[in-house]
């Protein structure tokens, strides 16, 4: 019986008068990769920001290993075990790769284990090892993404929140990064919550998925089930049904089943 690492109940988050999350409930089990799919403006990043404490919810609970963490300061949430790998990497550009990784370990007290973990990150991302003394701002987009994930790993998180790791990367790099995400999950047992626009790769790496539309979850299920759903196929995977005309402009009505 797996253990629930992250449980979210009826979360409501506002931007001023705008309700961005309209009652989101979900759970992430230990060792799972859970993906959140949704169009632009659906509330995916808001959800991650609310979990990591960057934003405060108006209502609802966020339970990490059963303990409420909502409305706490981000640093306490990081210490509690949530690593947020933000959209657009956000590495420290003027620090070196090694320093960036050390920043990730800032909250840790087991200083002895840190060099080991840095080596572990270099194992997974050899290119970072080669460029350990290079300023992070001079890395390519893909390398920065790797660094951001590595920096997240350095906190030894209970759950890692990944916000669009595929953003702005070439297909080959996306494949590479997701391969590593999968390895981190299977080899290290890192629990992950993955927000993605690229539904195809996300559903292939994830165990479970939720579809968020205008701040509300409209569909939930095993990744395999979502992949097979006609709505997901048409709206997220871009598979359009064959028509006699050979082109199709209209969309089917979403039923989410």
């Amino acid at each position, binding site marked *: 019986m797996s253990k629930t690492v992250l449980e979210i109940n009826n979360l409501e988050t506002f931007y001023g008068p705008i309700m961005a999350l309209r*009652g989101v409930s979900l759970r992430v089990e230990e060792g799972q990769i859970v993906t959140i799919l949704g169009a632009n403006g659906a509330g995916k990043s808001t959800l991650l920001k609310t979990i990591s404490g960057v934003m405060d919810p108006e209502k609802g609970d966020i339970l990490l290993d059963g303990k409420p963490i909502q409305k706490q300061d981000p640093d306490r949430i990081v210490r509690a075990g949530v690593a947020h790998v933000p959209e657009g990497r956000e590495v420290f550009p003027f620090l070196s790769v090694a320093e960036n990784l050390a920043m990730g370990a800032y909250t840790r007290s087991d200083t002895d284990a840190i060099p080991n973990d840095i080596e572990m990150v270099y194992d997974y991302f050899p290119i970072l090892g080669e460029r350990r003394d290079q300023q992070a701002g001079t890395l390519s987009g893909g390398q920065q993404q790797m660094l951001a994930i590595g920096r997240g790993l350095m906190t030894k998180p209970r759950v890692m929140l990944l916000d669009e790791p595929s953003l702005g990367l070439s297909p080959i790099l996306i494949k590479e990064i997701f391969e590593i995400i999968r390895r981190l999950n299977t080899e290290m047992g890192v629990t992950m919550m993955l927000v993605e626009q690229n539904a195809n790769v996300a559903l292939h790496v994830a165990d479970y998925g939720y579809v968020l539309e205008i701040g509300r*979850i409209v569909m939930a299920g095993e990744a395999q089930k979502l992949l097979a759903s006609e709505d997901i196929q048409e709206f997220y995977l871009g598979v359009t049904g064959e028509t006699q005309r050979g082109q199709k402009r209209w969309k089917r009505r979403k039923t989410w089943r």
Partner: protein
Amino acid sequence: MADGSAPGTLDPVTFDGCATVASLFQKRCRENGGRIAHREKDLGIWKSYSWDDYYNHAQWAGLGLARLGLERGQVVSILSEDRREWLYVDMATVCMGGITNGVYTTDSAAQLSYLVNDSDSVFLFVENDEQLDKWLEVRDDMPGLRKIIVFDRDGLREFSDPLVMFFDDLIALGREAAEEAPDRFDGEIAAAQPDDILMLVYTSGTTGPPKGAMLSHSNMIFQITAAMPSLDVHQSDEQLCFLPLCHVLERVVSTYVQLGCSVTVNFSESAETVFENLQEVSPHTFTAVPRVWEKIYSTVQITRAEATPVGRWALDRAIRTGMSKAQLEELGKPVPPALMTRYRVWEFLVLRNLRRILGMDRLRRGGTGAAPISPELLRWYHAIGVRLYEGYGATETSGVATFNSDQDNVMGSVGKPVPGTSVRIAEDGEILVQGGHVFQGYWKKPDKTAETIRDGWLHTGDVGRIGNDGALTITGRIKDIIITAGGKNITPAEIESRLKFSPFVSDAVIIGDKRKYLTCLVMIDQENVEKFAQSRAVPFSDFASLCAATEVQELIRSEIDAVNQEFARVEQIKDFRLIDILLTAEDDELTPTMKLKRSFVEEKHKALIDSMYAA
């Protein structure tokens, strides 16, 4: 102005001197000329179209169709959402002596081919690329079609097919024809006979395939004649057209009431925007199905729950005062001056605003029909100052058969027969109707017609009773009557409409035929139940998990328990299940007006039903 003749006589019925819809249409267009007939929203802006546009387009489309080979008595099918072209083509066909047949946009390709073939349609109008794809999918099954005409070019610029043309090309063709023979259209209008069929309306076949009910010019003229004097509709009125025009109710309201009184018809953008459009248009009369009235009521209930305590208090007091006044009026008793004063204050402070928010500030009369409505809901509307009246009718009675009106309203009944018609109750309780509005029979199905019209009476299939006041009350459908294992006859409609009064219940189906006790399947109102769950911090993700939540189950149970209080023991619901799939109009279980279809529900959710009797 009306000289509605008694049923059975041979004099044709006339309205305003016209015995056919075609001649009435011509007369109205000439009288009204540049006045606004229709409004339609285009990219967010309301645009107006005149009676001249109506007439010209009908003429051009009609003559265009004639060029393409339309002959009198042939059928033209229309597969489109409500829009002005729908009515242009309808009138074009009718004036040219053809027969119009509407197809629901929610119908599948297979259903389309059945309807086109069964009706022997020679032309098919489709709204856009989406509907055209339906035809393309089954084109080989419909050899009888001569041309497919598309209203919207969007997304089809590259498309060409010898059988397909666009509406503007048809209009161009018709303009040419009109220049060559300017009198042709008027000649065709003059040739119409009162007994000519002008439309087919397919009835949703719960048993067997759908049947096309044939309605004639005189049926519709009779309907206008009989209903108009008591409907209190004026030339300056605005109406909102949003129910499918394939349905006889919307067609009567948007086409024939309009021809009767020259009102302006505003087309709603889509099914999702009806309530916004209602606010924008603020119609003077509004006819809808109970589901719409229920939805508006639940929106107010939910808004109330979210309001400030003062706001809530004021609304409750205002409605209570309105309720006391409405109760006295219902009983025909005078309203005491003190109550009247209080009512005026609340009217000024609260009710007026409430109606404005709902888009009902100009509303003189609301109408409801096509499904049962709970009397409590009617009273609530009267309390807030919306005069909502229930009517009854069927496709086979060309729309309205009985109705309540301002002068004569019996709450909870569907009112009295329209003037010049008779209604009686057969020995088995079935409602029988006679009059000029009774249809001409089912298209190509004389055996079905003979089953329905027997000894000169239309057998409606509904059961009901007539009170001492002469008002008809419907209790349900004859084939829906539940006979429990204990031998008790129960008409489920009464219980169901009571359940639907709950803001959390969208629709319900009572089960129990040949069973030990009654149970029911409930379709919850997604929006309101989600709000409930959210305010109680009940976690849910998708619709199925919402339905599975214990608190939601408890909520529905308490709603059912409340309804059970009002019924005798054998009529009480012992168990229930929620339908945890969000149904859409494309699903077999729902009618295009979003009612649950009993037979389909019973079949599709058999396992769920059986689980309630497993014990």
